[in-house]
């Protein structure tokens, strides 16, 4: 009797342990494997961090399967939060196991995946060939190292300004006269004096707008030899310009620390800010999260530094990549080129996501750009493509975005430097020199 009870207890322990081992059960292997589905479609695992992107990919997978029934794919999407997805992908890349077949990688994280001679991503240049001449070259450069293209862009992310026309009219400001940053600063100071509210935003956790200004000043974040150089005269001048605007009240820190945050949507919708300089993809945030402002927002080109040829650069972005170790890499690359670079895909990028598509053939297709039923065309008082076509020849590639050390610089600015300059009142030069010292040490360039 006693032995039976003891055995039973021991069996319970064993069963619990077995259950623990069993219930995991997943295979840690890379991607979804090669075994085709019952209907012959090739399964592909894809990680993304924006739910809406998934809608687009699913649409493009269905379309691909219609066009190529013999090479059908079965796309298996997993949506993670932004930071988690990149963390998991990095850990997988670094440990050599567990990469999905395809993944969306945000531009400031991209450098983490293309270090060294043997990066974990596949060279996608061959599959891009059929579409290459229509695609904004600066955006492919962003995800290229040498001749190899490691990711396909999602949008141009050209900087534009979103003006709240109602607020500007009340204050007697005509946004169409704002061309340079000096105009912007003057209008902002005037608006602030008249209303007591802020005109534009000073963003403390997203380093987007300042690279635009630095590029317009002809500067970079890294020296010729690739070492970090965030205290160069151009960078200092750019930040001094921004800091001056904080002092005159032309721009002010925004709740949520950047326009792309729930608290910020609330504050913009309430009318606390009248002019948002941000990449073109911000259209979707207005439509999705600030429906109250429909019919009141105009899109205009971003301000420029007087005399600069650089009208805009691409801001933000997502490069979609194929894992070098994926067993289905060739098919994945071919589908991805179709899903991201083809005219068809780019029409969907505009219609589903409201982003400025990288295939410029779409920009001239008036049936698409002037579509009166389009929700973005209905929301804004001006047409995004008019603005894009206006700056088309001035879209430059900001070299620094391709640096392997961009993540470190981005992290430093997004936590400390921007806050110091915009909120703590540390003189721009001092904050930048401090950042330079810290980054040198961090990047082993001291």
């Amino acid at each position: 009797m006693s032995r039976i009870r003891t055995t039973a207890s021991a069996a319970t322990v064993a069963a619990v342990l077995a259950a623990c081992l069993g219930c995991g059960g997943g295979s840690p292997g890379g991607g979804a494997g090669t075994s085709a589905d019952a209907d012959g479609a090739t399964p592909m695992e894809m990680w993304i961090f924006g739910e809406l992107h998934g809608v687009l990919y699913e649409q493009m997978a269905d379309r691909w399967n219609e066009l190529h029934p013999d090479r059908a794919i079965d796309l298996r999407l997993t949506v993670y939060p932004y930071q988690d997805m990149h963390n998991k992908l990095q850990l997988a890349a670094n440990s050599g196991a567990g990469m999905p077949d395809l993944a969306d990688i945000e531009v400031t994280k991209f450098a983490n995946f293309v270090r060294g001679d043997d990066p974990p991503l596949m060279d996608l240049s061959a599959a891009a060939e059929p579409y290459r001449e229509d695609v904004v070259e600066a955006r492919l450069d962003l995800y290229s190292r040498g001749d190899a293209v490691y990711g396909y862009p999602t949008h141009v992310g050209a900087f534009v300004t979103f003006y709240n026309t109602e607020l500007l009219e009340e204050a007697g400001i005509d946004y169409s006269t704002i061309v340079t940053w000096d105009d912007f600063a003057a209008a902002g100071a005037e608006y602030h004096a008249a209303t007591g509210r802020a005109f534009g935003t000073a963003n403390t956790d997203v380093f987007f707008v300042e690279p635009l200004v630095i590029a317009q000043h002809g500067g970079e974040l890294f020296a010729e030899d690739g070492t970090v150089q965030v205290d160069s005269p151009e960078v200092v001048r750019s930040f001094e310009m921004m800091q001056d605007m904080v002092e005159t009240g032309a721009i002010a820190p925004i709740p949520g620390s950047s326009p792309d945050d729930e608290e910020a949507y609330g504050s913009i919708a309430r009318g606390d800010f009248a002019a948002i300089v941000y990449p073109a993809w911000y259209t979707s945030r207005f439509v999705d999260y600030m429906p109250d402002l429909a019919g009141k927002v105009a899109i205009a080109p971003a301000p420029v530094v007087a005399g600069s040829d650089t009208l805009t650069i691409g801001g933000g972005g997502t490069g979609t990549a194929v894992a070098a170790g994926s067993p289905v890499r060739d098919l994945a690359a071919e589908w991805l080129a179709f899903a991201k670079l083809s005219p068809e895909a780019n029409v969907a990028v505009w219609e589903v996501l409201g982003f400025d598509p990288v295939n410029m053939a779409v920009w001239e297709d008036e049936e698409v750009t002037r579509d009166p039923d389009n929700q973005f065309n209905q929301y804004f008082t001006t047409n995004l493509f008019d603005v894009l076509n206006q700056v088309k020849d001035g879209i430059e590639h900001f070299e620094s975005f391709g640096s392997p050390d961009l993540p470190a610089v981005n992290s430093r600015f997004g936590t400390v430097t921007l806050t110091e300059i915009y909120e703590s009142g540390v003189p721009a030069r001092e904050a930048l020199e401090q950042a330079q010292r810290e980054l040198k040490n961090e990047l082993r360039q001291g």
Partner: protein
Amino acid sequence: MPALARRLLYSQKLAPYLFVLPFVATLALFWIIPVARSIVMSTQEVMYGQTTSVGMDNYARLWNDGVFWTAMSNSARYMVLSLLLLIPIPMLLAAVVNSRIGSPRVKAFFKASMFVPALTSVVVAGLVFRLMFSESESAVMNQVVQVFGIGPVRWLREDLTGLAALLALAVWRWTGVNTMYFIAGMQSIPGEYYEAASLDGANRRQQFLRITVPNLRPTIVYVTTISVYGGLAMFLESFMLYGGNASPNNQGLTVVGYLYRKGVEQNDLGFASAVGIVLLVAVTAINLTQLTLAGTFRKENVR
């Protein structure tokens, strides 16, 4: 039953080793090996599974890294302040609950309500506090301070108010648990001690200071040990409160947060391992000092 198995099951000599075997295995597999690996990794640069030895370079970078020292001082001040809050307050509450007067029903309600916050996950607790300490003027904490004519305060954008929010979260979650430890400790103090003291004419305050506190020493040592650990290793509270691992001027960055940022977010496993080793040394040093001062290692206490 085979003789061998019988000997095994009945042997009083072997039994203890079998009993502690799971712990020995855990110790080796999940502590000693990883710590050893961590020490090795802290002298390497790791990239896509390939390692290069860099000697003490990671430690040198660490030493010169302003952000690391920010994280260290954030963790240290959080630990010290949370010790100052989470030992005296729960002890006092426990003494009140443990006193002979008062309604048992009220006390039961009190104990249950105080413990409930500890049951709340850090995800939920962090979210709720983030929303209570939101900078909007209609958020709870701003409504409270506005009663006193202050604000609205941008709680999580300023260093000290952000720290206050973190401490509020800690006090909210852990007061109940620590109170419970102290109640348990107080209930194991023999009642005769108090009777003797009250015959000697000691009042309640004197009894608390002369009998309760000294006899609670083991509990105090235990709570201090886990609080030193908890304070220095705090990460998720800040992570949830600030909605991520980035905070203005790194005011919410802790040592573990920095380890996470370096190792997981920026994938510098070598550097992150060095951060981990420094943390290990710090926690061990503080706790060893503390335990030695409290006499925990005296022979009779480990038996």
